[in-house]
């Protein structure tokens, strides 16, 4: 029996059409647009000026506080503009625009580092390096990694979980990375284990990536501290609370963190970024992005420099097909729809999904027939139909009492609703108001 989380979850069509496509390096863009708020927390502070010449990997915005992160220039070139530009959030955000220096060879050099297994840095230095080199969680939440690793005195941690689940349909960035950079990822895991002073790590991979499971099992057969857990394919297993429950059987308390049950979770992409930062002094300035969609000519996985406009990626896979109705930054379940292809790739961009007319349109919302499907699929044990009603009617205190804030916004409820009710839309709306009300109360 494969492990999984017990309550709720769905199994949408996987559509992993790019799982056999090796990661190609994207052409270096002529111009990169780098937002200073690519992570959760305080935006970074810009430390360059217009017309400044910058080197590849140079810090262009410095961490703005405890929960913040450095931002590095992905190219060598000249800062041409510092301005408010619409990013994938749909809002204008402060961005640094850099024109790539076409003559600088560093921009185009293909650096393949030899595998370096020996970990020279001590735990403190490791965390400092991760902080300096701007590593954030690449699974989507973009939480600054060094903050996660700064475990308070007295908090007991015994497990590091590596999230190789990639439960979102379509996306294959983590899958390809696991296949192509497995030895590096294992070194990265050891680095994190050293930094956390723990001896046990488990890599969780869903069973639709049998090749990755086999590869990691083979590579870790002599590693007593690192295990591989093959997981049943079920969305949203990549949610960290679901992952901890699936692999270790531990239930993260309501409003708590995996830390509360002695666990730290990191995505495989993050682990690879940690490896490069610690072993090869490479800042986080590129990532793997899956560019996919059923109608695309040549959907693929790419190594992409942060700040690359999404239109470059779309052009690389054959352009937007006729009848494109939706562009999504991320996967189909939790990704964000974007308005056009001008927005740049950021540290949190795991995929670009192009959705056609047939798939994009939502059905007309009808009356709730009280079938209870939303209740069965909710992995958090909530009652989405009830929360939607409460949010719609403005009964926010009741919604808070019904645990609306514990919703992880996985979208399983909206996915299954036979009446096409916009459950998650209203729950999100309710959450926002509850959050505001609670702030004003304190």
């Amino acid at each position, binding site marked *: 029996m494969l492990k999984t989380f017990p309550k709720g979850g769905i199994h949408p069509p996987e559509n992993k059409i790019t799982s056999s496509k090796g990661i190609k390096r994207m052409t270096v863009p002529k111009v990169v647009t780098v937002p200073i708020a690519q992570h959760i927390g305080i935006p970074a502070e810009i430390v360059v000026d217009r017309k400044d010449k910058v080197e590849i990997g140079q810090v262009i915005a410095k961490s703005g506080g405890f929960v913040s992160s450095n931002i590095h220039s992905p190219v060598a070139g000249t800062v041409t503009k510092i301005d408010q530009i619409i990013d994938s959030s749909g809002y204008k955000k402060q961005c640094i625009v850099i024109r790539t220096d076409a003559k600088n060879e560093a921009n185009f050099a293909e650096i393949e580092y030899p595998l370096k297994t020996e970990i020279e840095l001590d735990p403190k230095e490791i965390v400092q390096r991760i902080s300096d080199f701007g590593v954030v969680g690449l699974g989507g939440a973009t939480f600054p990694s060094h903050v996660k690793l700064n475990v308070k005195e007295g908090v007991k941690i015994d497990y590091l979980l590596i999230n190789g689940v990639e439960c979102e349909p379509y996306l294959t960035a983590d899958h390809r990375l696991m296949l192509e950079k497995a030895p590096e990822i294992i070194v990265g895991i050891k680095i994190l284990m050293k930094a956390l002073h723990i001896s046990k790590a488990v890599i969780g991979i869903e069973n639709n990536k049998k090749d990755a499971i086999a590869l990691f099992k083979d590579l870790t057969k002599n590693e007593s501290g690192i295990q591989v857990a093959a997981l049943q394919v079920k969305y949203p297993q990549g949610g960290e609370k679901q992952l901890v429950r699936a692999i270790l059987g531990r239930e993260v308390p309501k409003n708590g963190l995996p830390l509360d*049950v002695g666990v730290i979770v990191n995505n495989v992409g993050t682990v690879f970024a940690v490896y490069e930062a610690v072993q090869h002094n490479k800042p986080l300035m590129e990532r793997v992005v899956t560019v996919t969609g059923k109608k695309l000519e040549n959907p693929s996985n790419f190594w992409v420099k942060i700040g690359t406009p999404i239109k470059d990626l779309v052009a690389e896979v054959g352009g937007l097909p006729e009848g494109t109705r939706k562009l999504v930054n991320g996967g189909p*379940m939790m990704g964000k729809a*974007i308005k056009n292809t001008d927005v740049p790739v950021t540290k949190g961009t795991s995929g670009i999904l192009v959705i056609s007319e047939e798939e994009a349109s939502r059905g007309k919302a009808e009356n709730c*027939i009280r079938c*209870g499907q939303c209740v069965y699929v909710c992995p958090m044990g909530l009652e989405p139909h009830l929360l939607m009603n409460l949010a719609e009617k403005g009964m926010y205190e009741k919604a808070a009492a019904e645990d609306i804030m514990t919703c992880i916004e996985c979208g399983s409820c909206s996915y299954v609703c*036979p009446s096409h009710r916009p459950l998650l839309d209203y729950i999100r709306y309710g959450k926002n108001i509850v959050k505001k009300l609670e702030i004003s109360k304190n």
Partner: protein
Amino acid sequence: MSQSIIISASPHVHSAKTSKKVMYDVVIALIPAFLVSLYVFGISALILTAIAVASCLLFEYLIQKYLLKSEITIGDGSALITGILLAFNLPAGLPIWMIIVGSLVAIGIGKMSFGGLGFNIFNPALVGRVFLLVSFPVQMTMWPTAVENNMSIADAVTGATPLGLIKEGLMFGDTMTNISANLPSNMEMFLGISGGSIGEMSALALLLGGIYLLVRKVITWHIPVTMLVTMAVMTGIFWMVDPESYASPLIHILSGGAILGAFYMATDMVTSPMTKKGMLIFAVFIAVITVVIRLFGAYPEGVSFAILIMNAFVPLINTYFKPRRFGSKIKSKIV
């Protein structure tokens, strides 16, 4: 290009399930029982069903168009099911005007007065049936016997239902051994050659449809299985204590509306609880009330009353039997 790009919040894909598909699955599941009713009662079953369905659809249309002035949703399959289920709960040969009145009550009072699909507290078809039962008790308990010629209209030759025979016999102090001589055999009841409402004839046909609903995941086992098992256990206890005064559990399950109620009426999504725990409680109480009415009440049959009574408790059940919130009590400890 950006003209045609739409923005909406996640999720961006949908399971392609629709309420309509769910409703039509129920209709498909009712086909075997309908065919049996045609076989047993001939054209009068067809007339009954056609009138009930047509009037349910018509009343929903008229109410939406002229009273509520809202969108017309008679195509969603829900009024269709109400019509079929109402017909299935009526005796063949019921006067046509009574079928129409029953449909009006089912749709008008049972469903639309609460706000239409999804808002009704009581199962509309049962509201219609019980209204007819208490208003026209004579006509509602005239059970035509199976017709020899399928094309003839069931006439006034009436027999009693097995449950009716038992109730009557026991009331006059007869023993089960004597009463059983007049009852159809268990096999006859299973296949569907006994008196009663047109849809509750054949346990076999109803079970076939029920299995279809289970396979299609329209319903889960919780309500039907719990309800039937509880009924069997309860009637079984009485039967074992005194087999001459109480009918066997098999008779109780196979006769009357037990199976029709368990698979098609009590499982109605709108009027049943939302959580599995709630469904179990709901089903147990339906069974208990049914058995109490059957054994000790004035009516020989109590499934309709039991379901309606428990329908009223569904909001309460939903309030008290909630799914367990993730992380609400921490069982797991750090090892």
